[in-house]
């Protein structure tokens, strides 16, 4: 065993890249859940984003256009969930699972012509001056633009929920849709917007997989990343900052165990892979034992004005 072979600078740099797709998807899902909607279809939206982004990037030669298209495509798909759960009052759990089915099926049909094709690459964006700094330069400041964007998004969501009126309304809707409705807020509209935002973020996450992380289109490319994003939101107890911590932890455990293996350590892989979920349960228990309501109170409940 040679643990000295693990370079902590490179380790953190690679955790940042590896966590970006789940971070993007999780921050979007957090906003959705904050509005009181549980969308279990993250996996389906992510993979749809991945395929749409890839197709557009290959056809236009522009990865950035690809990202935009991935976000729009996944948001469009999430609209079907929005219409069903918000306008037609269908059950959110079942609809979310259906969304995953639809997304997985649709994406592989769209993706057929793009198998084996190479995507245009997204250049690394070395931030001037900062990227030349020793240690932190390589670790934090020489990634591609989406890594920074994902972190920026976390800050933006945090500020939006904490400081803006719209953020306050969104939280009110998630805590008690009946009171929010009584106060004259458009519950359904707020939730639809949140669902679209969640879809777009999941789409960006998927796009990051197909355009940067892998970068190629293959069926089943997300391989469960959407489900991990759902877990991260819970782990984070619906706080933006902790979503980032959670994504880096969940992504980091995989990277770390692979690094340990490469360094020659015997690693109990199954135990390590299960540990983030166990930690998440512990976090949930702690926040609920403290008497704080972790989850938005209206999470998963349908709303109808006549209720």
């Amino acid at each position: 065993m040679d643990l000295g072979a693990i370079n902590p600078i490179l380790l953190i740099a690679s955790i940042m890249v590896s966590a970006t797709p789940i971070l993007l998807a999780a921050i979007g899902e957090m906003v959705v859940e904050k509005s009181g909607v549980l969308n279990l279809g993250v996996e389906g939206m992510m993979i749809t984003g991945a395929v749409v982004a890839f197709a557009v990037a290959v056809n236009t030669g522009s990865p950035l256009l690809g990202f935009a298209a991935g976000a729009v495509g996944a948001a469009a798909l999430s609209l079907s969930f929005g219409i069903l759960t918000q306008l037609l009052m269908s059950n959110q759990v079942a609809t979310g699972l259906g969304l995953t089915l639809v997304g997985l099926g649709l994406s592989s049909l769209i993706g057929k012509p793009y198998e084996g094709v190479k995507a245009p690459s997204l250049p690394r964006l070395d931030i001037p001056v900062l990227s030349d700094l020793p240690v932190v330069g390589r670790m934090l400041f020489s990634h591609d633009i989406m890594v920074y964007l994902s972190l920026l998004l976390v800050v933006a969501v945090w500020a939006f929920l904490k400081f803006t009126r719209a953020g306050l309304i969104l939280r009110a809707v998630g805590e008690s849709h009946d009171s929010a409705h009584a106060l004259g807020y458009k519950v359904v509209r707020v939730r639809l917007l949140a669902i679209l935002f969640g879809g777009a973020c999941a789409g960006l996450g998927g796009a990051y997989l197909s355009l940067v992380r892998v970068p190629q289109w293959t069926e089943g490319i997300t391989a469960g990343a959407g489900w991990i994003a759902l877990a991260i939101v819970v782990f984070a107890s619906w706080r933006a900052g902790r979503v980032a911590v959670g994504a880096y932890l969940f992504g980091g455990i995989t990277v770390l165990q692979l690094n340990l293996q490469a360094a020659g350590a015997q690693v109990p892989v199954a135990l390590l892979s299960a540990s983030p979920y166990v930690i998440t349960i512990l976090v949930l228990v702690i926040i609920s034992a403290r008497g704080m309501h972790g989850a938005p109170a209206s999470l998963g409940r349908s709303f109808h004005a006549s209720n």
Partner: protein
Amino acid sequence: MIKLEKRPQPSRLWTYLAPLLAVVLTMIVGGILFSILGANPVEAIRTIFWDPLFNPQFAGYSRPQLLVKAGPLILIAIGLSIGFRAGIWNIGAEGQYIMGAICGAAAGLALYPSESVLIFPLMIVAGALGGWAWAMIPAVLKTRFGTNEILVSLMLVYVAENILASVSSGLLRNPDGMGFPGSRNFKQWEAGHNAELIANTGMHWGVVFAFIAVIGAYVMLTRHITGFHIRLTGEAPKAARFAGVNPARIVFLCLGLAGALAGLAGLFEVSGPAGQITIDFNSGYGFTAIIVAFLGRLHPVGILLAGLLMALTYIGGELAQLMLGVPGASIQLFQGMLLFFLLGVDVFTNYRIRIGTREVA
């Protein structure tokens, strides 16, 4: 302005009409999908819905297979539906299913190669206990700390999947399997095999238990005080408390029942149709069962029908791939659409459409 207005009582007419309308809509849109993919739409729809039941070439085999495929879905969905009625959202049946399979299989394999007749009953008990114990974790956390059971049960699915990966390449690995991950095959060990009870009918113990569960749930929900308490807890938690219902007891009951049934489903599957514990032995029955529970409107008979319909699309979808060469993904999409339409048109059961402004504000 189109408005939805909640019906005072679910419409009886729409209760029956909605699923039919959804199936017709799916056939139309699915037909369009298949014709875009270059298949004959009429033929594709016929292959999915008709051939598994009536095609002379396949039906003799695929009709019993509908039971095999629907059995675990119905068994799990019945357990879940009772919890859902009480407002207890256990979405971790997949994990309970896995743990039931692991515990049941482990209990049996520990006694390999004994041929005692007690082995299979022992496995059944161990399977039910395994699923039950896994569901007790969210139950205890919910009653003790008020922790959200949706999330705990979902997280436990991932933990169970990791345990499955670990035991199938470690503890339960077949010593004669040349190092490949996977347990011994129960089909080659009579004492532990969940075989067909009557040849060529698809009826194995899991299907029998599924039917018993349907009847049991129906009796409990309509005729028994416990069923009344469960429904009351779901519909009016405060009233339930005044009626002397102990909410913690309901949580333990509902989660425990769902866990045990999911565990049984896992055990029957692993010792019968699947045959062995493998790394990806769970094929999503626990999640599909949630869909089945809602398609069946949380009613035992509805679940029975929904489970069979779901099984039909699986088997019909396989035939469509085989006979018409449509891609596997299109079947997945088709199932998703069917689900969306069923969930969507269901709105008419509980709501009526009003055009114009509402009369009473």
